[in-house]
């Protein structure tokens, strides 16, 4: 079993060189085909000696067939190994580069040691710093694990080819057709794609992907798009390609399921009264509508347009479809934002609308960057409907049930906590999939801000976070929200949800939160921005709140319009006692 120190020395070029040498020897032997034909018994030669000579030449031919096939197989094995080693070299170079940049030392035994030395830490940022160091260390550990796994797979596959050669497994019956023997040998050797590790972290996925050759990556997208479509840590361009390729197949499966459920219901005298078929049919129809919504959203613009849409996630494995779509390229953008919506969010009902609003935020961020002379910086904005957001349910009794019992309700934190697990992975996947981390901003609205807040209690790589219309952070201590930059809160007038403080205290009353305005304002350059009120207008184009969100996304906090817009709801939501951080 090789060590990581061994892997540092592994090289593809000499292996390809040996494949070339094997090819050269194979070609020499294949070129003997004419000679082999010539040494068979001359046509006019008959008799006992001729028979002996024929036997002799046939034996030579058989030996040559087998040797040619064996050499061709080993040549192919070496070539495939060399191709795979190119990916492995890239993976090693990537992890070495990251370790150097992040100031970690990688041992030959695969150990990761922090060599950053003593640093002065602002006490308020110490936790964030340590969490970030741990996140970086974990990513390096995960990447090395994946490199070792990949190296083991390459060694195993080549070893199998070589063992087969040593046990004479490449015998062929080519009757002296040496070209056929060589082809048979080559055909006997293939590669098995190494799947990503199950249940791994984004660093595992990134390490796995980095160590794949270009040919293997293309094969993964073509043959196993389901492996990577929703796998955090994989570059989004590959995820987009995989997810787009899955739409048609997913639709076929859903249509078939819809037909089956419709037939079952039609055959049942009681309809769906005593079964769950009617509910299941409704879910399938919603998922089909979700695919329509995704396709319509993607159709608005495609890469390489600067605002090209990319399908970063498409997941039909839960009751409701989940998806994430970016405007702009999150693999390359300097600034990336992730918008997490709240109550009632669905792909079929909300994606197009949110995409339009998120595109507006991105447009504003790009405009503001241009205004301050940073027009070369790029922005990608993501709408993340990547969790089962609670849904509005009709009827008094359903609402009462939700309040008391159901986890799929805005009154319960379960959806937010479960969503946060997925959101943490998605955030970390952004950094893990890139060579350089972007300036990453989390945008959470309503119940989505609670989901975001639960996520940011973990290590995520998020730099800035904006919470708007938030019913609470799931904590009453703002220090629990780990971001390296700022925590920003927007609360519009007459937004009752922002005052309920259902998940922890009303965030309006937390310290170490920067309150940014949603009221009308005139900017120093004379532009007028309008006020928004209520719970659902924070992303309105031309509003102060949208402007503020955009400048946070652009990494330009000096341009913020601060100030809170507290109202009567904040007075009655004031916590007793008030000693919250």
């Amino acid at each position, binding site marked *: 079993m090789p060590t990581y120190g061994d892997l540092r020395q592994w090289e593809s070029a000499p292996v390809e060189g*040996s494949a070339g040498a094997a090819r050269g020897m194979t070609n020499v032997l294949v070129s003997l085909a004419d000679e*082999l034909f010539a040494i068979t018994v001359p046509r006019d030669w008959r008799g006992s000696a001729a028979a002996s000579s024929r036997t002799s030449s046939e034996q030579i031919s058989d*030996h040559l067939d087998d040797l040619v096939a064996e050499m061709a197989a080993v040549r192919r094995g070496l070539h495939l190994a060399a191709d795979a080693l190119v990916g492995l070299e890239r993976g090693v170079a990537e992890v070495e580069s990251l370790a150097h940049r992040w100031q970690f030392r990688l041992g030959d035994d695969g150990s990761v040691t922090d060599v950053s030395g003593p640093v002065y830490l602002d006490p308020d940022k110490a936790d964030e710093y340590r969490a970030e160091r741990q996140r970086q260390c974990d990513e390096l550990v995960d990447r090395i694990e994946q490199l070792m796994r990949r190296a083991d797979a390459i060694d195993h596959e080549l070893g199998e080819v070589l063992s087969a050669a040593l046990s004479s497994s490449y015998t062929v019956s080519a009757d002296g057709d040496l070209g056929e023997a060589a082809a048979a040998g080559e055909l006997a050797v293939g590669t098995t794609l190494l799947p990503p590790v199950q249940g791994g972290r984004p660093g595992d996925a990134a390490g796995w992907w980095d160590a794949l050759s270009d040919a293997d990556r293309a094969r993964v997208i073509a043959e196993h798009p389901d492996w990577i479509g929703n796998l955090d840590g994989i570059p989004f361009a590959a995820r987009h390609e995989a997810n787009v390729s899955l739409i048609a197949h997913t639709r076929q499966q859903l249509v078939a399921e819809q037909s089956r459920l419709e037939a079952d219901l039609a055959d049942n005298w009681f309809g769906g009264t005593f079964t769950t078929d009617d509910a299941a049919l409704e879910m399938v129809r919603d998922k089909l509508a979700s695919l329509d919504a995704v396709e319509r959203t993607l159709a608005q613009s495609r890469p390489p347009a600067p605002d090209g849409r990319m399908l970063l996630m498409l997941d039909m494995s839960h009751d409701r479809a989940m998806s994430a779509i970016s405007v702009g390229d999150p693999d390359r953008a300097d600034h990336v934002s992730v918008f997490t919506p709240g109550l009632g969010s669905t792909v079929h009902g909300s994606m197009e609308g949110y995409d339009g609003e998120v595109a507006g935020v991105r447009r504003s961020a790009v405009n503001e960057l241009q205004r301050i002379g940073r027009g070369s910086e790029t922005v990608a904005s993501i709408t993340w409907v990547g969790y089962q957001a609670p849904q509005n349910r009709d009827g008094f009794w359903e609402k009462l049930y939700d309040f008391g019992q159901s986890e799929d309700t805005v009154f319960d934190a379960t959806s937010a906590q479960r969503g946060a697990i997925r959101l943490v992975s998605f955030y970390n996947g952004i950094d893990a999939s890139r060579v350089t981390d972007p300036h990453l901003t989390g945008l959470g609205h309503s119940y989505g801000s609670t989901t975001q807040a639960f996520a940011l209690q973990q290590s995520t790589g998020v730099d800035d976070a904006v919470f708007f219309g938030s019913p609470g952070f799931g904590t009453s201590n703002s220090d629990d929200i780990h971001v390296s930059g700022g925590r920003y809160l927007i609360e519009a007038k007459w937004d009752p949800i922002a005052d309920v403080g259902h998940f922890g205290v009303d965030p309006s009353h937390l310290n170490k939160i920067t309150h940014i305005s949603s009221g009308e304002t005139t900017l120093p350059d004379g532009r007028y921005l309008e006020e928004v009120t209520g719970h659902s207008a924070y992303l309105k184009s031309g509003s102060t709140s949208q402007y503020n969100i955009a400048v946070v996304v652009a990494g330009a906090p000096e341009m913020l319009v601060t100030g809170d817009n507290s109202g009567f709801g904040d007075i009655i939501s004031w916590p007793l006692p008030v000693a919250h951080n």
Partner: protein
Amino acid sequence: MSSEYAVRIAALRTTASTAESAADQIHPLRPVDGLRPAGAAIPGSRSAALLASVGSRWAERLTSLEADFRRHANALKVAATQYEVNDAEAAAAFDASYAGSLSSWAYR
């Protein structure tokens, strides 16, 4: 064993020289040298050790194949020579026998 044969001795010699040519082409092949760089490029791997074994195996097989071609060539040359000798002896015997017949006929 058949007691009948037909042969073109020149064709046998040509075939023998073709077999020798094949052996000559095999002779310079050095599989151990060819595979050594790959083994050295993946230290610590199981494949590195296996590559050395495969190189040795190929060297043995190529040596054996070369020898087979040369043996075959030699056998053809020996056969050609033997045919020549046999033909000469047969011709001589024939001539001797035929000449005796002619003599007896001529003198009859």
